[in-house]
């Protein structure tokens, strides 16, 4: 009995310290997180098209990952995994392998969704920098 209580206490103590340790790793930005978000958003060129600017929006998953520096506690991580798995849509026609020639064309362009004014991506495999 005594041993059980002692064990229980030791365990809760471990939990408590690990929870504390998690708290101690403060979310990035600390008390300036809100200011930082505002400043970040205000830092972009005014002539960026509106639909480019939508790429700065964050969903719940992105916000949570930021909060925990990409390492959320397992419980929260599982929740996010489920949430995102639920958004996967299989092709309606049931064919899981598409036209590889179309895929090859996309790969060769190499733009991979880059946007910006400075340096429009040249086509070809060296488009990344």
């Amino acid at each position, binding site marked *: 009995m005594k041993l059980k209580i002692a064990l229980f206490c030791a365990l809760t103590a471990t939990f408590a310290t690990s929870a504390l340790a998690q708290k101690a790793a403060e979310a990035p930005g600390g008390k300036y997180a809100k200011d*930082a978000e505002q400043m970040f958003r205000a830092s*972009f060129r005014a002539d960026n098209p509106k639909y480019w600017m939508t790429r700065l929006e964050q969903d719940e998953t992105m916000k949570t990952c930021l909060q925990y520096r990409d390492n959320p506690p397992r419980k929260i991580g599982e929740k996010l995994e489920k949430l995102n798995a639920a958004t996967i849509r299989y092709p309606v026609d049931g064919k899981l392998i598409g036209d590889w020639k179309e895929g090859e064309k996309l790969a060769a362009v190499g733009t991979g969704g880059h946007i910006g004014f400075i340096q429009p991506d040249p086509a070809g495999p060296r488009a990344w920098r």
Partner: protein
Amino acid sequence: MADELAKYREALADGNPADLLEVKGESLWAEKRGPKNASLEQCDMGLGPGKLEGAYASLPKYFKDTNKVMDVESRLVHCMMTLQGFTQEEVTKNWYSKPGKESDIEALVTFIGAKSNGMKINVPATHPEEAKMAKMGEYIFYRRSGPQDFSCSICHGQEGKRIRLQDLGNLTTKEGAGFAMKTWPSYRVSQGAVWTMQRRLIDCMRQARWPEPNYLADSIIALETYLQKNATGTVMETPGIKR
């Protein structure tokens, strides 16, 4: 493959094309120019007017006269406006070079950077405004968004990652940040040009598939403050040479 790159660097170490730009920057620094026909020799890069030894290594820094944390580029632009009388538009029109179009800023930053060669990066961010900038930089570093859920930390937050042949250091550690930051500005062989840190980070935002930030934007200066703080204590080896 990293070895191949090391050999390549070694071969180029005696003749970094950035050295030419450094010489050009030196003469631009001393040349009387602009509506006020003045040189930049009285420019205060943080250690006092005209004191350049170690200045780059201690930037970004809080400046009383502008009440702002400034990096080497924003401070240089400030000096060109206040001392030489140029407009911001004139100064920043060619903030980076294009084929056939050289950039005074690239040359001047290469020159100023070289004056910190062999010195330790020293951005403890102890002034409250600097501490705030470093924290805001940290926030941006971990902030994920865009079509591929990217943040700086996704590409630069772990050990031993690479994109194709490029090793991506862990910029959240002193070793990783130091290894990266000590070599800037850097001649980029693939681009045939010297890139400043602003250029590097604006291009990394492009790689994150985000819209394009303003040149000299606070978000870039915040990231620089965060990275230089992480790198503090590392000896500068600049101008660098990179892929």
